[in-house]
């Protein structure tokens, strides 16, 4: 039970002032700019866009600055802002086969049409602190192997076929089907169960990276055995098209950066389907590889029922996963515990006193 308590306005105003002061930090240190955040802390920006469910790097940078780098708080700010904007349209489904690919790796085939490209990755770095980055204003030598004016190498393909499309063509990976249905939208009609795959994918795409990472890890450790392989991970720019109502044709409005992960998993088949591979799918705004991989693992785990597998593990329980993967909801409900619960606690206290009195009486009687 909650009761209105008055007072504390001055304390709140004071706390806000102190927060602003701490946000700024030592005034002798130059203030951080949104450009700096957007350019130099781009993984933070991408994560806030994904979980904030709004692609706008500048606004995500602003949210990060305002939240003093607390990314879950920044997600909250971005989510709150998006509720103030009208939605003009739904995009046509983006086509990741048409991605201008900047990174593409596959753990299942060495030689792929289009090849493998590491792109700007942390993989294979030594994870040793690089003290040269401490030397401010003195940019470390960056070796640029290809100057900006060099033309594209002739063998660079304009398009890279998705590895999964090749497996489907061979008949060893279950094809995805498109029923043409308008996908459910949890921002309009709240989540309910059972949740179809479109609903699950939307919830996972907005879900907390850490939570999904832990769940994805649990499937690898045996909680919902799913034997995943990273079929393909690709990152790059994808055109967004939408159909304005005043035009008789769809138009491209620009490009967004996306990371896609296709996990390939064993499937023993059933009466209708021979043994084959199945997929888990992950898609994240920006360079969100860990998120996309975790999402793909959990997406596959949540398909247990559809694929006739016994669902016994947390990652296979849609209600458990989807109800708890949103960090805005989770953070809100956990943090509400800080709010005054004086009356609840008084009630608990009087119950406890009564129980203790009864306990003491029984003890006395027993003696």
């Amino acid at each position: 039970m909650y009761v209105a308590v008055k007072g504390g306005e001055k304390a709140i105003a004071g706390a806000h002032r102190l927060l602003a002061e701490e946000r700024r930090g030592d005034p002798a240190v130059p203030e951080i700019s949104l450009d700096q955040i957007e350019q130099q802390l781009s993984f933070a920006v991408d994560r806030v866009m994904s979980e904030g469910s709004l692609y706008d790097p500048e606004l995500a940078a602003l949210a990060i600055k305002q939240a003093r780098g607390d990314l879950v708080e920044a997600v909250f700010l971005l989510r709150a802002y998006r509720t103030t904007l009208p939605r003009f349209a739904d995009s046509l489904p983006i086509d990741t086969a048409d991605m201008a690919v900047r990174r593409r790796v596959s753990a299942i085939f060495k030689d792929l049409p289009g090849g493998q490209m590491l792109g700007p990755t942390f993989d294979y770095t030594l994870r040793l602190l690089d003290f040269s980055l401490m030397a401010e204003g003195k940019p470390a030598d960056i070796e640029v192997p290809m100057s900006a004016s060099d033309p594209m190498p002739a063998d660079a393909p304009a398009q890279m076929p998705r590895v999964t499309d090749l497996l489907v063509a061979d008949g060893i990976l279950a094809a995805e089907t498109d029923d043409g249905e308008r996908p459910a939208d949890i921002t309009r009609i709240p989540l309910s169960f059972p949740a179809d795959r479109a609903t699950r994918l939307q919830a996972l795409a907005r879900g907390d990276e850490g939570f999904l990472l832990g769940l994805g890890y649990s499937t690898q450790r045996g909680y919902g055995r799913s034997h995943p392989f990273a079929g393909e991970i690709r990152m790059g720019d994808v055109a967004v098209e939408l159909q304005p109502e005043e035009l008789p044709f769809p138009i491209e409005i620009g490009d967004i950066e996306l990371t896609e992960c296709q996990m390939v998993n064993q499937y023993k088949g059933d009466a209708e389907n021979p043994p084959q591979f199945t997929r888990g799918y992950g898609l994240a705004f920006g360079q969100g590889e860990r998120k996309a991989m975790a999402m793909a693992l959990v997406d596959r785990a949540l398909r247990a029922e559809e694929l006739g597998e016994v669902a016994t593990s947390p990652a296979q329980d849609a209600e458990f996963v989807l109800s708890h993967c949103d960090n805005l909801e989770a953070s809100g409900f956990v943090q509400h515990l800080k709010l005054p619960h004086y009356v609840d606690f008084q009630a608990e206290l009087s119950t406890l006193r009564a129980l203790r009195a009864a306990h003491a009486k029984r003890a006395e009687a027993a003696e």
Partner: protein
Amino acid sequence: MKQITEPPEHAPRRRWLGVLARASRAELEAAKGLIEQRLGPVDMPRFLRRPEIGMAMVRGRAGGDGAAFNLGEMTVTRCTLQFSDGRLGCAYLAGRRLEESVLVALIDGLLQDRRHGAALADDVIEPLAEALAARRNQRLAKSQPTKVEFFTMVRGDGRP
């Protein structure tokens, strides 16, 4: 940009809207300047819809090619102008770009001019499209040196 296949009569406009949506403010100002050189000063048409910022829900597909799902939203700016002969100039741009949306809507309307439009479109849009392709290639080219060349160390043929 994607290959535009149909319907053919809309292809040029569809293409230029896609190019204009990715052009910088300076490029758009320059494009407007070029058009004014040809057509003389342009009267500002009336706003059918003033520039406004909103969102589009970006959809993906399960598995890349399966059923659609809602990935998340992106900010979008739009503007619609109506010229005196009824034609519409439209702009839908990714991001929050109010001034640019007015420029794009204006240029879109002007390029539909019956007499000069086709020639204008070539002169205005092609340089922008080339600049766009150059920017894209430059970005992609940076990944090329990260392409993996595999060497097979031991052939499997000799195994018992």
